[in-house]
């Protein structure tokens, strides 16, 4: 903490219910008369639906059946665009696209019914490679299947290449990644008990996204839809936009059956149908001088959006805004495009495009360093952004961060030059093990991009309960990252109370204002600041109530015991006291959405990650033996929660780097189980050492910046840079599987291959 408090962090406030098994996740909830729902999906990647038949051998009388024709409002998943239907209406654009919904009391009967429905198609050629999306036979969106295009231009990149001594031009690829939250998607919908409207309970990150999409679907006003978050078993972006679809489906079944309907996916359906991280292809062309200064960067970034737009334009935006990394480069051109393919749509996943572009640049930086004969950290040192430097969008760096100090700390923790010498000696002696250190340097923008936070105009309220406790009202969700605990700490600090005296209202759109989505590393920093302001406003309102002609009570005086006494008086008098806050843009933030010039993010978290890897040259198995994550995230609000966020993100990043591979065949995901889509286990990863520098951010609560996405960015490039050094090959893709490394090593080896 910034004020030097030494008290250990409080236990997380939702911990007790979670460790005892009492926390109620959506699948734990039963309601009287509840039906189970099921989704019937397409079995082809693209084509016209020519017929749907129901096997007459099955008794269909107990089933509720919903098709696109039953939709009372608009068959559009309203988000950024309206291109995606809730239920395919005559045409499918991807495998596993929802076509029909069923509900029944007996889940067993639903399984039988699913097998008794036959859907026939007139198939059309699917686009299964984003490089081919421009071909006319694949045209399904706009003129050329382009979902979104962004150009960021700084200076004159041709002139920059003119002044370079060396130019390196390479292409990098990343694969899809499944969020693999351990709780699959699930919703319960029921007709509101009072007759009008619908209530939805479920696993989600963004309650007001569901309100927006489902009211549009049902054609009802926002006041007739209530959305309540149930305890949510992980999100990582996977429960940002997709829950709107599950909620809409459950609501359609509930309205038609007039019963509560539970729609919970099993793991197979979840991996098969829901959004994943966007695959990417990034070409990086960089010019450097012989003394190791970057002169020009030209980056062509292509994202595979899948079959519908979802959040792709914003993912592309974040990818492009992180593409030039924490480096000062005079001339930059970034051309970013996202295009359609006929795979299930890609969507939000922790990092949101940034891990893809950072991976490409950081691999490229290491290759440039090798060409220049410089160490990776020395080459980076010569190019880091510093206060006052200009980023690709023209943004002037305000954060006073010393990236090189972050880097040398990591290097030293890994054993430094001494360790590198040891590894080199061991490599020379070992017949089959090659080890090396690898690094990545990066930033991650906190909060929504540019003017996004202004558009959200988030609101938070703080009220006194009938017992005189302080209750925080916001739509931001606890999904494991610690929202409840963090908001309690922030409000308590503002009012001089103990965190246990703060209540955080469950996100229920009938009660809480819209404080924006729980995404984009914004909850602690942006919404936390609003929690602080709302708590202070509550104190001010309470002071106003206590003041009269004779006595003026200042808000500042109402802290700790004085606040408790005042709250007691409010309870006695039956006063309703409500504090409010609303987002206001820091004055320095200037952003032009049309030209992509200005302050892309109000602030950034900065980091250098490093690792040691050992590669077996017979099996090409990669073992990450050490990992150090060093970052400046502003003030750390809760040390244990912050460490847990970083470690968890790093391990997701290691999974993306090495083992997590979504396998498609004819546009369908084939590995739809946790035994075939492999995420890291206890024994696949080393302990993750986490270090924090804490340069406070003035518009973050207690100086805090966003933290959630940052750790996803660094592991892949750090690990692949280490692999490159260990094996003397240049891996250009993640996941970097043993088969791929073997191929690279064989290609690099003299005739006869590595095992000849």
């Amino acid at each position, binding site marked *: 903490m910034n004020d030097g408090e030494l008290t250990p962090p409080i*236990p*997380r406030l*939702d*911990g*007790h*219910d*979670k*460790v*005892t*098994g*009492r*926390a*109620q*996740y959506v*699948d*734990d909830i039963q309601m009287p008369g509840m039906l189970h729902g099921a989704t019937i999906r397409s079995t082809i990647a693209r084509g016209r639906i020519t017929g749907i038949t129901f096997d007459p051998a099955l008794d269909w009388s107990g089933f509720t059946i919903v098709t696109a024709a039953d939709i009372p409002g608009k068959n559009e998943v309203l988000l950024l665009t309206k291109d995606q239907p809730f239920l395919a209406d005559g045409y499918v654009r991807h495998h596993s696209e929802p076509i029909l919904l069923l509900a029944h009391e007996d889940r*067993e009967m639903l*399984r*039988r019914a699913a097998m008794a429905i036959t859907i026939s198609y007139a198939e059309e050629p699917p686009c299964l490679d984003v490089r081919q999306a421009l071909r006319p036979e694949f045209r399904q969106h706009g003129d050329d299947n382009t979902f979104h295009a962004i150009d960021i231009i700084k200076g004159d990149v041709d002139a920059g290449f003119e002044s370079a001594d060396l130019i390196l031009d390479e292409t990098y690829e990343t694969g899809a990644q499944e*969020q*693999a*939250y*351990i*709780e*699959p998607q699930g919703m319960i919908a029921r007709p509101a008990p009072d007759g009008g409207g619908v209530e939805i309970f479920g696993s989600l990150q963004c309650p007001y996204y569901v309100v927006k999409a489902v009211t549009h679907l049902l054609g009802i006003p926002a006041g007739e839809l209530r959305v309540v978050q149930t*305890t*949510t*078993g*992980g*999100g*990582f972006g996977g429960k940002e936009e997709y829950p709107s679809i599950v909620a809409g489906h459950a609501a359609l079944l509930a309205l038609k059956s007039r019963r509560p309907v539970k729609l919970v996916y*099993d*793991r*197979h359906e979840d991996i098969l149908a829901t959004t994943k991280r966007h695959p990417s292809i990034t070409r990086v062309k960089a010019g450097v001088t012989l003394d190791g200064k970057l002169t020009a960067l030209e980056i062509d970034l292509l994202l595979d959006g899948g079959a519908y737009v979802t959040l792709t334009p914003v993912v592309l935006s974040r990818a492009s805004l992180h593409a030039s990394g924490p480096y000062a480069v005079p001339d930059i051109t970034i051309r970013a495009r996202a295009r359609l393919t006929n795979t299930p749509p890609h969507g939000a996943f922790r990092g949101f495009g940034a891990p893809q572009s950072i991976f490409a640049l950081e691999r490229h930086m290491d290759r440039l360093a090798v060409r220049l004969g410089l160490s990776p950290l020395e080459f980076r040192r010569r190019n880091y952004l510093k206060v006052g430097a200009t980023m690709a969008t023209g943004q002037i760096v305000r954060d006073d961060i010393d990236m090189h100090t972050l880097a040398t700390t990591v290097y030293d923790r890994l054993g430094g030059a001494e360790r590198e010498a040891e590894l080199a000696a061991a490599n020379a002696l070992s017949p089959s093990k090659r080890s090396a250190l690898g690094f990545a340097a990066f930033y991650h923008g906190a909060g929504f991009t540019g003017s996004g936070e202004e558009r959200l105009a988030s609101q938070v309220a703080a009220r006194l309960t009938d017992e005189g406790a302080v209750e925080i009202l916001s739509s931001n969700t606890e*999904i*494991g*990252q*610690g929202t409840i605990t963090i908001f309690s700490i922030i409000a308590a600090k503002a009012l001089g109370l103990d965190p246990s005296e703060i209540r955080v209202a469950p996100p229920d759109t009938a009660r809480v204002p819209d404080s924006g989505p729980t995404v984009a590393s914004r909850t602690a920093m942006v919404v936390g600041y609003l929690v602080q302001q709302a708590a202070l406003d509550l104190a001010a309102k309470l002071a106003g109530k206590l003041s009269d002609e004779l006595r003026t009570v200042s808000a500042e005086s109402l802290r700790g015991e004085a606040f408790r006494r005042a709250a007691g008086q409010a309870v006695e008098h039956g006063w309703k006291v409500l504090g409010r806050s609303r987002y206001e843009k820091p004055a320095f933030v200037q952003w032009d959405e049309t030209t992509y010039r200005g302050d892309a993010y109000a602030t950034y978290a900065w980091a250098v990650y490093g690792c040691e890897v050992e590669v077996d040259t017979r099996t090409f198995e990669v073992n990450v033996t050490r990992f150090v994550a060093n970052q400046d995230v502003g003030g750390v609000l809760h040390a*244990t*929660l912050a*460490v*847990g966020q*970083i*470690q*968890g*993100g*790093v*391990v*997701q990043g290691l999974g993306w780097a090495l083992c997590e591979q979504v396998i498609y065949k004819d546009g369908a995901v084939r590995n739809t*189980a*946790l*035994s075939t889509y492999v*995420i890291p*286990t*206890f*024994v696949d*990863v080393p*302990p*993750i050492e986490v270090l924090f520098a804490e340069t406070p951010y003035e518009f973050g609560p207690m100086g805090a910046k966003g933290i959630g996405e940052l750790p996803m960015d660094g592991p892949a490039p750090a690990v692949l840079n280490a692999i490159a050094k260990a094996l003397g090959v240049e891996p250009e893709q993640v996941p970097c599987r043993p088969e791929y490394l073997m191929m690279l090593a064989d290609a690099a080896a003299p005739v006869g291959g590595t095992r000849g």
Partner: protein
Amino acid sequence: MRRLLSEARVAEATIRFRVNGRDVAVTAPPFRRLLDVLREDLGLTGSKEGCGEGECGSCSVVINGELVNSCIVPVIQSEGAEITTVEALAETPIGAAVQKAFMEHGGAQCGICTPGMIVAAAWVAEHRAYGSDLRDMLAGNLCRCTGYDLIIASVDAAIASLDIGKSRE
């Protein structure tokens, strides 16, 4: 597994066993998953389904002293068995110590793997041999939030608080 069940609509059986010290009799198709019987028939929703194929460990329970994934156990196999689920752990010194340590050391984040993880951790704390590696012993349980270190820290703290390590040496 579920698909298999759908074809196996055989006569229901009455199966008797003990759960958390309580005698129960359930009438169910013999191949109904123990996890579903616990959650739906007995209302013990602490055990979670993460994968349905015995891969993630979120449904971990202890049957006759063995740590098992209840999503791949047909209920008929529970006949006469003694079953412990997360709901009973607070009553045992080891279970309570593990729960407390998970709260204090960041062992739980989203919490969905936590009940199974805690059942496994309590079992490991009790049964581990001297020198055994906690990571190896817990490798049957997946967590997507923590990156595992704070779970290890939690289990270490629980073991230290119980002084189990010493008594096993």
